[in-house]
């Protein structure tokens, strides 16, 4: 039995089984989950979640593509409960929903494409520590409540409010594990450079969330011990002919481990200079692409960068500033290349309770 709370923007109460096993199957049967068990979004749990924002439950934060369901504060809170979020995570999810609905993020494309693209959440500022979002060892892996559940909640919002169910409006050929959750904070304490949100125009004491359309993660393990050599091997890893970044002119990202960031800083490089060097050194000869990709590249990029032929050296982004850099992770000789969806630009929004 469904009982509306009215008005239309309020959620509907649903009578669900008391037995936990039956309840979990109840959610699976309705495709309200991501395939994992959910936390029952009871009125009490949703109310606790809503107590952590000053916004009204029926405030519409965004309309979420491709179904353009209205993401009210209450609906975001319900999905946050289901994902296992703690109540004080709610403002992060509200900001993330705002961010991913900005036109330049191209959520319609991200949700409905055959590409495996996931939405990567990057948390900056004081709230990262307040919520214990992992920015250190295994920050892109398992084991931290905030990282696991914030990313999961955003996926449930995209699926349950945006309507992008796998095989239906979500047309991904394979998808990727990051579509369950993809969330970390920046390791601001161990970064030699200003943090991401400061680079993007916010004050250090502001808290922000940045959304990125991430096609996947590719680990780079290198013991290079000087900036020139490290940049050379990272740039070489960025180049691959089946990359969306190269045929569209995208926005590739690098998660530099603190050790690698320290090597680049010790080499006298600012973040902007790292971007400029990588942009130059990762240019790829267009002939490495399949003939079809070269044709697509010509159709898409010639208006911006001029004539393209097999000898053209293609950059992964339209300019050096198009490369995103984050310092995160723990000790180790690893950094991560995050190729992008290509046809999307990262968006940052302030987290406000």
């Amino acid at each position: 039995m469904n009982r509306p709370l009215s008005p239309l923007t309020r959620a509907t109460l649903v009578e669900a089984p008391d037995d936990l096993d039956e309840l979990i199957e109840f959610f699976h049967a309705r495709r309200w989950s991501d395939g994992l068990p959910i936390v029952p979004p009871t009125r009490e749990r949703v109310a606790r979640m809503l107590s952590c924002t000053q916004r009204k439950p029926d405030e519409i934060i965004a309309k979420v593509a491709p179904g353009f369901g209205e993401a009210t504060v209450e609906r975001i809170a319900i999905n946050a409960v289901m994902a296992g979020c703690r109540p004080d995570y709610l403002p992060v999810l509200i900001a993330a929903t705002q961010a991913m609905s900005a036109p330049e993020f191209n959520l319609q494309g991200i949700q409905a494409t055959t590409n495996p693209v996931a939405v990567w959440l990057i948390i900056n500022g004081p709230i990262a520590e307040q919520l214990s979002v992992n920015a250190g060892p295994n920050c892109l892996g398992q084991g931290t409540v905030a990282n696991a559940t914030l990313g999961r909640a955003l996926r449930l919002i995209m699926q349950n409010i945006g309507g992008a169910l796998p095989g239906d409006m979500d047309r991904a050929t394979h998808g990727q594990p990051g579509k369950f959750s993809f969330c970390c904070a920046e390791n601001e304490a161990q970064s030699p450079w200003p943090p991401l949100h400061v680079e993007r125009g916010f004050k250090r004491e502001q808290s922000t969330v940045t959304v990125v359309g991430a096609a996947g993660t590719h680990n780079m393990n290198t013991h290079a011990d000087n900036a020139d050599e490290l940049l050379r091997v990272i740039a070489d890893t960025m180049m691959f002919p089946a990359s969306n970044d190269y045929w569209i002119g995208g926005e590739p990202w690098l998660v530099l481990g603190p050790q690698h960031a320290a090597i680049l800083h010790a080499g006298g490089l600012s973040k902007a200079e790292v971007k400029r060097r990588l942009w130059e050194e990762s240019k790829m000869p267009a002939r490495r692409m399949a003939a079809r990709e070269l044709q697509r590249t010509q159709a898409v990029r010639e208006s911006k960068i001029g004539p393209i032929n097999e000898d053209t050296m293609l950059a992964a982004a339209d300019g050096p500033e198009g490369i995103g850099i984050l310092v995160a992770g723990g000790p180790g000789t690893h950094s991560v290349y995050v190729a992008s969806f290509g046809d999307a630009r990262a968006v940052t929004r302030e987290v406000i309770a």
Partner: protein
Amino acid sequence: MEIAKRGKAAVTVVSNAFIGLGRAQSRSLGHANLPLAVIPHPFGSRTREEVRALAEQCVAEIARLAAAK
């Protein structure tokens, strides 16, 4: 969709891999009966000449769907 909302004839061209998306999205946006003209998948890797040929193949169907509106 915006054209359909204004009461004008509107047809969406989709490749056959995206029929489900087209139908679901038009339903979500309140135009469940928005006509779809279907072309073979994939579309993104077509040359300009191939796109032109496809357009010629489906133009009659588009006109038929638009006229039926």
